[in-house]
């Protein structure tokens, strides 16, 4: 069967494909306790299922290729179609036993893996609330002291080794929070309070994506997760608590004036300025993020220009309107946004 001959080649190609990039949005990412346990369990299941499949295929080929002496098969032509061999009858019982035992084993393995993930995630130290909107993530770091709460969007910074509990809410439709390199997914359902606990174990940058169809731009609802060392994480938190820098260059000042007095401030908020809209993402430290518009574009000056000028052509249907800025206004606004580090 040619599929048998082609399969190793294809698997090799796919495997090298799998190894040739960063593993930053992949279930093989292994960057958190949950992801590692997924991989172990997946390998166990894969091995058991592969053995079962091999048994079926071997039985199939044996049945096809088996040599039958003339007049001795249990077929209608030989008048023996009502007979069957006792070997097959015992094989049936053996097969059922193997299947049942195998499934029980897998179910028990799954149950224990589930419990062990739950235990690893107990004792959460950090609490985050993510509210999903069409098509961006509103991220808020909770704190007992209200003045220490951090609000950002589409990006997470997590300290390595610290269990973090993320509360999941939605403002509109059902979304799903999924960072495959770290953990499995959990839905954000309007009217329900879900949560997920993750214990990141490897410093790095990972990408997550919404995994429940949520409308036109479901494909462009990603978020970036930075797993930092603990000191780096604290430094980041403290930087986030700073309000937006005041603009210095004349162009940035013009941009500041536009942003705070015109359409931008009606939807977005920038800490320390009059812009206090609650409809769109918080922009206070926009320029320090890695992506624009929930993973639609990487952060950069050109992309900022493109996004501010015409979001509808980059992410059609997004709720940010195309304003139709004049060139001078566009330069000013982007110059200001770039200062929001």
């Amino acid at each position: 069967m040619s599929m048998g001959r082609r399969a190793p080649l294809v698997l090799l190609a796919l495997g090298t494909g799998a190894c040739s990039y960063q593993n930053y949005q992949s279930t093989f990412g292994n960057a958190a306790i949950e992801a590692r346990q997924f991989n172990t369990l997946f390998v166990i299941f894969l091995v058991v299922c592969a053995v079962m499949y091999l048994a079926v295929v071997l039985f199939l080929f044996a049945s096809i290729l088996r040599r039958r002496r003339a007049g001795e098969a249990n077929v209608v032509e030989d008048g023996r179609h009502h007979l069957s061999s006792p070997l097959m009858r015992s094989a049936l019982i053996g097969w059922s036993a193997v299947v049942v035992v195998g499934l029980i084993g897998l179910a028990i393995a799954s149950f224990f893996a589930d419990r062990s993930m739950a235990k690893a995630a107990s004792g959460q130290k950090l609490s985050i609330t993510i509210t999903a909107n069409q098509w961006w993530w509103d991220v808020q770091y909770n704190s007992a002291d209200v003045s220490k709460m951090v609000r950002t969007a589409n990006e997470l910074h997590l300290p390595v080794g610290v269990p973090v509990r993320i509360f999941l809410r939605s403002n509109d439709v059902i979304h799903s929070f999924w960072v495959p390199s770290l953990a499995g997914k959990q839905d954000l359902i309007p009217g329900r309070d879900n949560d997920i606990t993750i214990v990141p174990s490897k410093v790095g940058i990972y990408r997550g994506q919404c995994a429940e169809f949520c409308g036109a731009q479901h494909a462009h609802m990603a978020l970036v997760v930075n797993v930092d060392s603990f000191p780096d994480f604290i430094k980041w938190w403290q930087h986030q608590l700073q309000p937006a820098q005041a603009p210095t260059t004349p162009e940035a000042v013009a941009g500041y004036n536009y942003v705070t007095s015109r359409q931008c401030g009606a939807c977005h908020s920038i800490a320390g300025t009059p812009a206090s809209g609650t409809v769109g993402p918080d922009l206070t430290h926009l320029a320090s993020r890695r992506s624009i518009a929930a993973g639609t574009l990487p952060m950069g000056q050109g992309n900022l220009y493109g996004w501010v000028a015409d979001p509808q052509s980059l992410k059609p249907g997004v709720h940010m309107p195309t304003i139709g800025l004049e060139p001078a206004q566009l330069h000013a606004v982007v110059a200001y946004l770039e200062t929001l580090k």
Partner: protein
Amino acid sequence: MSSRFRASLLLLGGIAVTLAACDREERHSRSKPIGETLPAGMSPDTIWPGGTQPPALDPRAKLYDDNAPAIAAGQQLYSQFNCVGCHSHGGGSMGPPLMDDQWRYGGRIDQIAASIAEGRPNGMPAWRNKLTDDQIWQLAAYVRTLSGQPSKDAVSSRADAMSSTTPGSLTPREPAKSSGTATQ
């Protein structure tokens, strides 16, 4: 395949192509480029003296007036920009009710859009520079549904929110009570 079957298939295809694109459901996501702002001096009047005709409806009106995605977008904007704070869900409190047949500054969609953009005395803010024209038209389209003006096929029955009014698809039609406000 008989020739009769082929002919009827072609006829069906032809009808389909001509009827394609049901305007009511067309989603327009791009705003008009700069320069096409609301006509200067859009009159908020509802009385046209001497038998003169009211001005022609802005050509953009039909892109929004009976357009389901525009009305849905307007419904979201109505809550997000806190129109509810003064007008409630049409019943009015500090601001006048929007679900009745009394329109001080006109109940045509372009007049409503002008009211939103320019602001009005006694507390209606001017949103011209805070919202894009596209958003203002969407809001105007939604506001008209509060008094039941557009075709019921384009209106959604309710939002996913606490229920406080008659469902949108069952709202009784209250045409503006003044002469000359054509085109509902």
